[in-house]
């Protein structure tokens, strides 16, 4: 398997690689910052394995692992400013965690108790979008709104704002994603279009989505495009930082293809043994994004026993909390299915809600009162 030409600052064996454009972008990352990235990645992987177990135990209906994509997600998310806004697909668990979204809130969707799960305004992370590529247009429109708010190119780093839309290699075939490129380009919108090419759209390899390397697609739209080693957290950080700076300063959109690998199944309902080889999986296991940052920290003497013990303890606490809190998530009240269909009263919804309440009450014996929620 030939490695494509891509930006890399950390080799698969954990050695620093010099790049004339991008090494300066990580010069300020000290040992503390590197351990911070390492911690994010390790905790994200812990959430992934806990959630997978919870699905196997029947506590989640479904789960989509981010396994193997931690560097692409943590590196890019760590380059964001507080005021920046993220539009994820449905596999950006590590991005959401870096932004402060509680993993329990993420799992509400997979447990079937909430279509969303968190308040987007709290962390500037939009809700997951399950229709492939639809949110790339929302992200572009949001960026057009930022332009109209006058928050591009002010020169004030605490005000200038950008948007990142995350999507996968499969999404690059969708019409909406291509329209997002068109709208972003002609509007010079402050957006970073961040594709995690994890090689597989469920069972279809990237060759089924594109005749050319995916990064080439961006150039046709007039969008500066860069391909980065998606398993190299430092390179992902550097290219995203550059793209965000371009967006915030008025330089317009950037397309990033983070070349990575979906080490797990598409979701817990998938069976990758039907369509890909063990040898391929092993090839990518040798390029594990966490291992290479661990190796770097170790080589530079920054992987202290104290840090490792603290991280292991934190992961244990997180795992325990996740198991307990997810199992405690109850189904919402039955009547809530009628809530928020509209922001203002709608006669049909109101009529059906009233009828259903009466229907349910008709099964109660005299004197019995309706208890909604638990167990339904």
């Amino acid at each position, binding site marked *: 398997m030939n490695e494509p030409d891509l930006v890399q600052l950390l080799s698969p064996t954990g050695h620093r690689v010099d790049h004339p454009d991008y090494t300066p972008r990580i010069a300020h990352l000290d040992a503390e910052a590197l351990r911070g990235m390492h911690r994010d990645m390790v905790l994200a992987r812990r959430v992934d394995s806990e959630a997978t177990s919870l699905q196997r135990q029947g506590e989640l209906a479904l789960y989509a692992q981010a396994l193997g994509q931690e560097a692409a997600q943590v590196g890019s998310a760590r380059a964001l400013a507080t005021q920046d806004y993220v539009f994820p697909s449905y596999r950006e668990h590590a991005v959401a965690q870096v932004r402060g979204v509680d993993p329990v809130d993420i799992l509400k969707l997979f447990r079937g108790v*909430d*279509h*969303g799960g968190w*308040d*987007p*305004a709290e962390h500037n992370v*939009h*809700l997951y*979008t399950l*229709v492939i590529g*639809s949110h*790339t*247009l*929302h*992200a*572009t*429109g*949001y*960026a*057009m*709104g*930022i332009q*109209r*708010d006058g928050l591009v190119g002010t020169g004030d780093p605490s005000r200038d704002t950008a948007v990142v839309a995350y999507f996968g290699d499969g999404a690059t075939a969708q*019409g*909406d994603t291509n*329209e*997002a490129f*068109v*709208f972003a380009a*002609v509007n010079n919108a402050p957006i970073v279009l961040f594709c995690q090419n994890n090689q597989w759209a469920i069972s279809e390899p990237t060759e089924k989505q594109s005749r050319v390397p995916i990064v080439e697609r961006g150039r046709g739209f007039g969008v500066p495009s860069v391909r980065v080693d998606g398993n190299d957290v430092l390179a992902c950080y550097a290219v995203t930082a550059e793209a965000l700076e371009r967006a915030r300063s008025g330089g317009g959109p950037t397309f990033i293809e983070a070349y990575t690998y979906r080490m797990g199944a598409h979701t817990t309902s998938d069976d990758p043994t039907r369509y890909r080889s063990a040898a391929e999986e092993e090839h990518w296991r040798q390029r594990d994004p966490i291992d290479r940052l661990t190796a770097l920290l170790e080589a530079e003497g920054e992987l202290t026993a104290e840090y490792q013990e603290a991280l292991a303890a934190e992961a244990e606490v997180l795992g325990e909390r996740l198991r307990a809190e997810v199992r405690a998530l109850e189904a919402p009240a039955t009547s809530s299915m009628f*809530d*928020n*269909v*509209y*922001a*203002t009263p*709608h*006669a*049909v*919804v109101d009529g059906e809600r009233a009828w259903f309440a009466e229907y349910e009450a008709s099964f109660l014996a005299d004197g019995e009162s309706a208890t909604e929620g638990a167990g339904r």
Partner: protein
Amino acid sequence: MSPTTERITLAKAINLGMRRALEQDPKVMLMGEDIGKLGGVFRVTDGLQKDFGPDRVVDTPLAESGIVGTAIGLALRGYRPVCEIQFDGFIFPAFDQITTQLAKMHYRSRGRLQLPVVIRVPFGGGIGAVEHHSESPEVLFAHTAGLRVVSPATPGDAFTMIQEAIASPDPVLFFEPKGRYWDKAEVDLDAVGGGLDKARVARRGNDLTLVAHGPTVTTALKAAEAAAADGTSIEVIDLRSISPLDTATVAESVRRTGRCVVVHEAPVLYGTGGEVAARITEECFFHLEAPVLRVGGFHAPYPVARLEHEYLPSLDRVLDAVDRTLAV
């Protein structure tokens, strides 16, 4: 005549309503194909880009899904986009964004995210157009929870309803009867709307209730006029809203008249007429003197222009249904 009353076309009424909204709320913006210098293919946005600038009256790329998708993003950022879909038959590239995203964001977010987006759709036939330019797809959207679907029939309603649609915190599909764009009426430019979800009794009568919306309201009124000459008193209800459906107003009328005919340009199969008939049957069965009849398009694609007057619910076909209902 009060000084704020003007005799204007339905197209101009929408134009003035949007102008009012643009003046009153800096977050209101218009998006669409050719809506800038050209003023839209029907000139409904005439002069607005000149007065409000290209950032608020935006000529977009030719991509309907992109228009609606970016409007959703703009709404998430606090804007109130009004999208123009050039013709009814061109809304389908945006169908996914409208039904899976626009309609469901408020629900998905448990009320945290509102999408005050208006999608204007010139709809209906009778203009001698080529394929895809004469369709009536309103029920495809009314079938989707989370969307409001309305259609003004008069310049006066067009003026107030477009402003109410823009002010609504819910997404609104705004179906404009393009065949009536040039109909004129006195419009009170100080009028404020009485709510987007209420039907209007367009003509009082006692013997039969004719239910219509958009372009067929005029047809229904002509039918009532013709029937009056024969001594039949017809009540005409302009639904104004397809979602929600103002069943109460229709039922109140049918309880008095005992007879009901529903008219629309959209195909009859699974249409608004079927919904009205079902609800009337549920609510006023014992007041009905005859089955509820429907007059509308056939279960065939919209035909070539030379045949559209046979496809559309003409005055004669409406009167035929009225006669059949009264004969029971």
